[in-house]
């Protein structure tokens, strides 16, 4: 465990000692801030209209503002997380520091988990920025806390999947740009894979919508933690990290 934390700590330090962390956090804050502002304007107008029409119920903050904002957050991460994961292995391979890690008394599993946790740390730091807006909503309104908590759990799990895929792709190349590009496209495909599901017949539809990242997130957004989705995300992460371990090992044999 100490070894995993040592690597995780090193990874985080690497992000924050270079401009990477500040750039991705800054860009995320900018994009998210804009999305939130836009959604807030829409929400504002629709709740005014509802009040004007004399509706009994006021507009639901959770459903009409927070949920869409979180959905947008994940779209922003779709673009940003490849920039976080692309260097994890590629950079170490290019600069030769991978030799330090692979000849230190560490197991491959410890190195991979350390890198995974390091990237998760940076992801969590970005996600923490969204707490500011949520805090403001709590200060001036009364959103339901439970769906927000479960949404964060869902987003952390989904980010974990992104990062596991990113690590795998980074472990396969020395070239950061290639790692970043491929990761981005794979994320995108996993995001939209269920678009064609309606044309695929019942079995194909079930498979495609099960594979899709997005279909598993909606229950979390509604405040429901369904084991089915937790299992999907956790097994996705585990499989990604397992393949990363295989990829690192193969690289060893090949030299």
């Amino acid at each position: 465990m100490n070894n995993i934390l040592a690597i995780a700590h090193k990874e985080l330090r690497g992000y924050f000692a270079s401009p990477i962390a500040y750039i991705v956090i800054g860009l995320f804050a900018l994009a998210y801030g804009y999305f939130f502002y836009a959604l807030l304007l829409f929400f504002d107008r629709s709740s005014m209209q509802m009040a004007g029409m004399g509706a009994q119920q006021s507009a639901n903050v959770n459903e009409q503002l927070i949920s869409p904002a979180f959905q947008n957050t994940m779209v922003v991460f779709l673009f940003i997380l490849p920039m976080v994961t692309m260097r994890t292995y590629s950079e170490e391979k290019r600069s030769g520091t991978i030799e330090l890690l692979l000849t230190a008394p560490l197991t491959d599993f410890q190195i991979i988990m350390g890198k995974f946790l390091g990237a998760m740390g940076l992801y969590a730091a970005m996600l923490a920025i969204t707490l500011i807006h949520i805090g403001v909503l709590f200060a001036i309104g009364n959103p339901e806390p439970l769906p927000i908590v479960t949404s964060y759990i869902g987003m952390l799990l989904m980010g974990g999947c992104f990062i596991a895929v990113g690590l795998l792709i980074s472990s396969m190349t020395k070239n950061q740009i290639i790692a970043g590009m491929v990761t981005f496209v794979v994320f995108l495909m996993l995001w939209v894979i269920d678009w064609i599901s309606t044309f695929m017949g019942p079995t194909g539809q079930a498979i495609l919508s099960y594979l899709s990242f997005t279909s598993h997130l909606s229950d979390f957004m509604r405040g429901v933690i369904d084991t089915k989705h937790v299992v999907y995300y956790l097994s996705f992460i585990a499989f990604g990290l397992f393949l990363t371990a295989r990829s690192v090992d193969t690289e060893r044999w090949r030299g």
Partner: protein
Amino acid sequence: MIEVQHLTKRYGPVTAVDDVSFKVERGEILGFLGPNGAGKTTTMRVLTGYMPPTEGKAMVAGYDVSEQPIEAKRRTGYLPETPPLYPEMTVSEYLMFCARIKGVPRADRKTRVATAMERTRVADMAKRHCGKLSKGYKQRVGLAQALLHNPDVLILDEPTAGLDPKQIIETRRLIKELAGDHTIILSTHILPEVSQTCQRVVIINKGRVVAIDTPDNLTAKLRGSEAMYVEIDATESNVRPVLAALSGVTQVSETSTRAGHLAFEVQSEQGRDVRRDIAAAIVRQGWGLLELRPMRMSLEEIFLSLTTEDAAVVTPAEVAHE
């Protein structure tokens, strides 16, 4: 301390290391000599557990590097060809991180890092970022990293590459100091380095071991006969017959003739010192003896003769018999 048995490493169709075997005793410094691409780095990478061998096995400090990699790695310090530094860390941060992943107990880390920095003379750069160091400092920080956990075995891939002459001398001295407590394998293609620092040399070419011996023995044994260089102040043309007539002399060849300076290479039977006879003969003739010295094959010549095409068939056994 280190034992390599029939080690073979193939990358697809390319055989980088082919059936290499050697042993290194505790406290010894073994030089690994070979042209670029001979398989030095590959052998070292197998020894450090960076990559598994295709065939054969490697034991470090009593542990098989493939079977018990963690135990073997705990006892090995490795300086790769390019020092594995993280440019964004300062030297002391970097060494603290290395100490942590090498399993140095928390309480000892600071002193170990300080000692390693002291020994490799990088303490003055402790607060500098690794990425901003000169090549020489990078190399020494890399060496400090290898020493940190006080390993039994040190594997150094070209430890003096990129250093200036003063740093090279310091580094060689440091390596010699370390030899007592540590067993060291160092690779190099700089020949004097081997004769100055190593007790034994493995010459490797195209993945195969072509010779294993002490630098002195290699120099001596590789010659079939003894050779003397003689320079004489004489004008006569009968110098050559006079020398050739001496007992034990097998061959005399003239290497240069300037007025009054005749230079010869005199070959004699193995193990027979003919210097006294040569000197006496020259004095008897009334010539002036300007220079008389044994000619030894330099390590360069040995290296070239062992690693060029036609000589590559010399096996260690044959070298020993000569």
